[in-house]
């Protein structure tokens, strides 16, 4: 599963992308967030305030209840701020 981070999320995690293999119990974006939070202090910081977190699954905006599976591209970012 490929995870992408943009803008302040990238700054907080310290990485632009990572390949992860979460446990089989991770079936939604919300599950993934819970699991990623435990991956280090940067990740904990990035996912501390979910009100300012947005997600996309395979390049489409997605809610936290969206289902995810192996091979998906999941992106996390703050609300967009346009040009």
């Amino acid at each position, binding site marked *: 599963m490929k995870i*992408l981070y*943009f*803008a*302040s999320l*990238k*700054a907080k995690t310290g990485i632009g992308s990572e390949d992860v293999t979460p446990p089989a119990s991770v079936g939604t974006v919300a599950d993934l967030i819970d699991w990623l939070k435990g991956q280090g202090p940067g990740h904990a910081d990035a996912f501390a305030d979910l009100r*300012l977190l947005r997600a*996309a699954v395979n*390049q*489409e*905006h997605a809610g936290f209840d969206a289902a995810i599976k192996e091979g998906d591209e999941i*992106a996390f*970012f*703050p*609300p*967009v*701020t*346009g*040009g």
Partner: protein
Amino acid sequence: MAVRVQEEDFDVGLEFARFTEGRVDLGGVALFVGLVRGDGQTVSAMTLEHYPGMTERQLEAIEAEARARWKLDDALIVHRVGRMKPGDRIVLVMTGSAHRKDSLEACQFLIDWLKTKAPFWKFEEGQGGGKWVDAKESDDEAAKRWGG
């Protein structure tokens, strides 16, 4: 109909000339050009980050939506990414239609949507360092006009 995401600047006159060249079906062409605003003190530069791949998909979806809502003969979106200074051009939206109302409304729709839905994030540099800009509620309100 075209969508471009690029680091290079664009030339408004050249884009307009290409858009209208040899055409006699366009009664009106509406354009919107977004520029980097700054007083030279609080904001010295800004950088636009985007989500390559998703950006193009989103822009194409937005353009298709505009074509479905209004009678457009042509549309163009050019959006820059990377570091820009106050006064620099950021985005160009151009819509052409037989009638001015369609071109104007579609142009306004596209830029409202772009500002609120397209995956661009703005990092501003100023005297006190840099920071990622927070989303503004007024932009969401503008997009809601269109039921977005």
